[in-house]
């Protein structure tokens, strides 16, 4: 598009994860939960890609798939052009380059290890000697704002939530990764601590030249930290765009609804009607066509039959791509533009 074409650092192609449901004794049931369905996106080096969506839309599953903690049903992840798990990029090496920070700061630290041992564990797995790993852990503790002489020997239950999340960030950085996936990393923190940790993340990004995939349901936070934002709905990508563009001029009806649900600081712009009614449909049996059409205020008959094209979403550095028939010329939706001459031909 307009942005200079950069080689993506992380490229996700046709990622699918279906969780099978248990069959009963008679062999009934046995459907699948379509947690993530044909997700394509690119992460450019040095950018922060925000991922937003309602709970259950597949954000966290996507994070776990990116980290290869669960096996994808289909699709692949390319890192720096190499397929993850191939001979060029063994899983262990990939996991040194890509790290993750989990939402639950307490559950993600081993209660039996001191925090410096927790941080030093990763480097030791990758062949760094114990002494060097502990020294690195201490310097990272200092980097994330925890005085090593006071905190290094403590156990997780002796820290506050914000301090623990700093430890988790330090642990992710201990492997000197290039990408950090932050899965709701600040969502469990209270607002003042959340702001501190966000600023810390921005500082660390500059210092270590990191790339972030920032997953959150908090739109304000995503807008603050992201360069580009990806909106997910029911396991699919609805819209991708540069953060400012997407927040100022959303194009997908779901993005519009999601943004209008943001509490506004401006009393003249307060939300009066609930933007979306009901819960998202069941991902076991998602609606046909566009998955958003049962809740979409602009849905027409065609929306239940035609799946919107997702071609535009997967381009590297795409500044505004949307999967909606309204924005697809010649789709048959009354609000869509007529097909241009060359497309009709």
């Amino acid at each position: 598009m307009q942005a200079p074409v950069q080689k993506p650092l992380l490229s996700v192609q046709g990622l699918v994860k279906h969780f099978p449901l248990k069959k009963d004794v008679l062999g009934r049931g046995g459907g699948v939960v379509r947690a993530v369905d044909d997700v394509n996106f690119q992460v450019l080096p040095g950018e922060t890609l925000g991922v937003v969506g309602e709970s259950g839309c597949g954000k966290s599953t996507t994070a776990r798939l990116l980290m290869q903690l669960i096996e994808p049903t289909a699709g692949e992840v390319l890192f720096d052009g190499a397929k993850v798990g191939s001979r060029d990029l063994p899983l262990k090496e990939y996991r040194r380059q890509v790290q993750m920070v989990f939402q639950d700061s307490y559950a993600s630290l081993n209660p039996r290890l001191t925090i410096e041992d927790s941080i030093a564990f990763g480097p030791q797995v990758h062949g760094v000697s114990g002494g060097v790993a502990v020294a690195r852990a201490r310097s990272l503790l200092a980097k994330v704002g925890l005085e090593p002489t006071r905190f290094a020997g403590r156990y997780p239950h002796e820290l506050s939530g914000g301090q623990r999340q700093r430890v988790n960030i330090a642990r992710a950085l201990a492997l000197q990764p290039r990408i950090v996936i932050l899965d709701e990393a600040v969502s469990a923190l209270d607002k003042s601590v959340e702001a501190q940790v966000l600023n810390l993340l921005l500082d660390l990004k500059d210092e270590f030249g990191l790339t972030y995939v920032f997953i959150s349901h908090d739109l304000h936070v995503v807008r603050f930290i992201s360069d580009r934002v990806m909106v997910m709905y029911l396991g699919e990508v609805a819209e991708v765009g540069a953060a400012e563009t997407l927040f100022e001029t959303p194009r997908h009806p779901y993005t519009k609804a999601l943004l209008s649900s943001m509490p506004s600081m401006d009393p003249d712009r307060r939300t009066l009607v609930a933007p979306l009614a009901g819960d998202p449909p069941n991902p076991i049996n998602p609606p046909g066509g566009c998955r958003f059409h049962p809740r979409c205020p602009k849905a027409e008959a065609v929306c239940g039959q035609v799946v919107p094209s997702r071609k535009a979403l997967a381009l590297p550095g795409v500044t505004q791509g949307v999967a909606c028939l309204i924005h697809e010329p010649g789709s048959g939706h009354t609000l869509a533009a007529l097909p241009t001459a060359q497309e009709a031909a």
Partner: protein
Amino acid sequence: MNTATATLPVEKPAKSRGYWGNVGARVVRDPVFWVAASVVLALLAMALFGPWIAPADPQASSMLSRLKPIGTDGYPLGSDELGRDMLSRLIVGARLSLFMGITPVILAFCIGSAIGILAGYAGGFTNTAIMRTIDVFYAFPSVLLAIALSGALGAGIGNALLSLTIVFIPPIARVAESVTTQVRNRDYVEAARASGANAFTIVRVHVLGNVLGPIFVYATSLIAVSMILASGLSFLGLGVKPPEPEWGLMLNTLRTAIYVQPWVAALPGAMIFITSIAFNLLSDSLRAAMDNK
């Protein structure tokens, strides 16, 4: 601990006492722990130093002083059906009885934990295969299984130990499996996987420390059961053979005298009772101390 460091900023590296330090601090405040621990210590002392503590030779019989009541001169706790000093036999018998109670549990703890942790960490088909095989042992009541196994293997201490070990592997493996399955799904194990560590390293660093505690406490509670089962085997003539002093066996041989000297005949049973209660209370207070964070 937190409040102390918050109000008084200390400069020196504060190495805190950690999880086991906290468990220790809680357990010493529990009076039940002290009672149970001192009984267990006394029993262990009897087991270790029995032959030196015992006032008389536990094997020396005397046809003239059979079945003396408690408090007889020279026989503080009476004498048995062959005129042997009950006090000495009870003291010396502690060694074999405790040995028969504790050894199978230690063996089963090692083997059962290994099986359970393997099944729990592997999950999926491996888990199902291992745990359903283990379940087969549950089809038999534990007493029956112990009797059947030692009956089939033949009488003797070694075979009794072996059969008791086999009896205790399934319950320990099951506990180990369920604790490991819980720990395996914690985020810190995910994080360890995400750092590229292999399964063996993850189990060694992140799983063992978090599962061995609960398994150990459960195993402690089995010591009492093991003692009773071992006594039962001896009682049936499948474990320790006479004239070796062992509480279960003593209970067996004295049962014919129950109408003549009921109090003397009940003494070995009382020892078994006290020992199992002490081990049970000990494991209970350990579990209570480990429960709260």
